[in-house]
């Protein structure tokens, strides 16, 4: 099958490992990616200053996808996924909004019908491809590894809008990890936010929030932390040293995208999965695998 992908600003401009690993793993399940031209920011940061403008950004991106015949769209970033899901929700129930934004879209020759199905990576892998199919595709089991997961706020809440199994006890990412042979252990801080949403206004508090989560994870003695959102990955991975300096701890916790681990289990080379770009010490994981 073919699937459209809206990557979003963070992945397109800096979180390349997420894009690389997705582009590597999807073809292994006979899925080819369609890229969309002329997309913009999803609307998330704009929502803070003007909600209507944010919805315009979201539906414009979705209209660009519809225009090239995409009816199922993969949105790998949690923030973008919520932004689009919310916009779709409002679009369907607000005719005034439809008219007003519809006329702005028409200026670019765009039209939005609202018939697009949105998938976040976790939901797509879990619900569409399926755990069994993933299990069957594994070439190199990760059975010596023990992880914790951090699904990230915006694929869990609000549960009325996103496609979550249980907002207080989400299992999808854990099920996906187990499919690779790895162990996924529960911990009380699993639902705690990475702090990313505060980075613009209160950066020190944002890093402290990430630090409290990393401290809890460190005490569990796991091999690493698995994420599925570029913003969470930056807070808990790339900024790990800065976070450590603020809360007075040396973490050294490998943080990876699930798609990178999936790629390793499918036998894809590390470099193709962007593992050299992770700022946290992921070599610990690779050493354990060989």
């Amino acid at each position, binding site marked *: 099958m073919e699937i459209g992908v809206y990557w979003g*600003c963070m992945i397109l*401009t800096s979180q390349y490992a997420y894009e690389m690993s997705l582009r590597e793993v999807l073809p292994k399940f006979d899925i080819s990616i369609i890229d969309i031209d*002329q*997309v913009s920011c999803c609307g998330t940061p704009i929502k803070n200053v003007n*909600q209507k403008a944010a919805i315009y950004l979201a539906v414009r991106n979705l209209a660009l996808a519809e225009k090239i015949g995409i009816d199922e769209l993969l949105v790998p970033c949690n923030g973008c996924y919520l932004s689009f899901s919310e916009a779709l929700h409002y679009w369907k129930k607000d005719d005034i909004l439809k008219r007003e934004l519809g006329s702005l879209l028409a200026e*670019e020759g765009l039209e939005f019908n609202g018939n697009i199905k949105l998938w976040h990576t976790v939901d797509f892998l879990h619900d569409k491809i399926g755990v069994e199919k993933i299990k069957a595709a594994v070439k190199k089991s990760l059975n010596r590894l023990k992880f914790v997961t951090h699904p990230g706020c915006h694929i869990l809440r609000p549960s009325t809008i996103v496609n979550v199994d249980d907002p207080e006890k989400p299992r999808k990412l854990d099920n996906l990890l187990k499919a690779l042979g790895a162990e996924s252990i529960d911990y009380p801080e699993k639902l705690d936010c990475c*702090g990313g949403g505060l980075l613009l206004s*209160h950066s020190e508090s944002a890093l402290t929030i990430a630090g409290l989560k990393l401290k809890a994870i460190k005490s569990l003695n796991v091999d690493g932390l698995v994420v599925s959102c570029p913003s969470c990955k930056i807070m808990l991975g790339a900024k790990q040293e800065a976070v450590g300096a603020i809360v007075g701890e040396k973490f050294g916790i490998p943080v990876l995208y699930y798609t990178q681990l999936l790629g390793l289990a499918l036998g894809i080379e590390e470099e193709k999965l962007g593992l050299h770009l992770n700022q946290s010490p992921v070599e610990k994981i690779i050493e354990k695998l060989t």
Partner: protein
Amino acid sequence: MTVVDLMSEAKMNVELRSKAIEKGRYELYNCFQCMRCTSGCTSMKLLELKPHQIVTMVKLGLIDELITSGIIWTCAMCLKCTERCPQDAAPSDLITVLRNLAFDMEANVPEAYLKVVSTVLEVGLIQEEQKVTSRDFEIYDRKELNLPKISKPGEIFKNNLLILLTPEED
């Protein structure tokens, strides 16, 4: 960070309250102060954000105090409050509405938020393509990683966004 001095004589601003409610949701009147929102709030411990207070202050029409205090910018938007609210009052949605009002009234919006807005207007994205450094200090761009070129939106998009961001005249 405190929202308002409770010994002060803050007066309700009925007009702003209707504006906030018109943009947001009427369900905030269902709030019975169970404080589930505050007890699970990501920003409560470090920044003293208390969502249940914000709901009550909006009910009382103390909107000026809220949008100038800076407290509305302490929310991490983790959305736990909205998920857990038994009355559908959705405190995080209310905070978004208050942030939007603060932007319209040019009241105390943190500089970094305004900067992101101007970058999106200029570039279409939150930032230009970055070069990244690997763990062994090699520098890469998209091309060197075999990733396709980024295609950005054009002028019509920028004009439309600017129109939407310009506050409506009353």
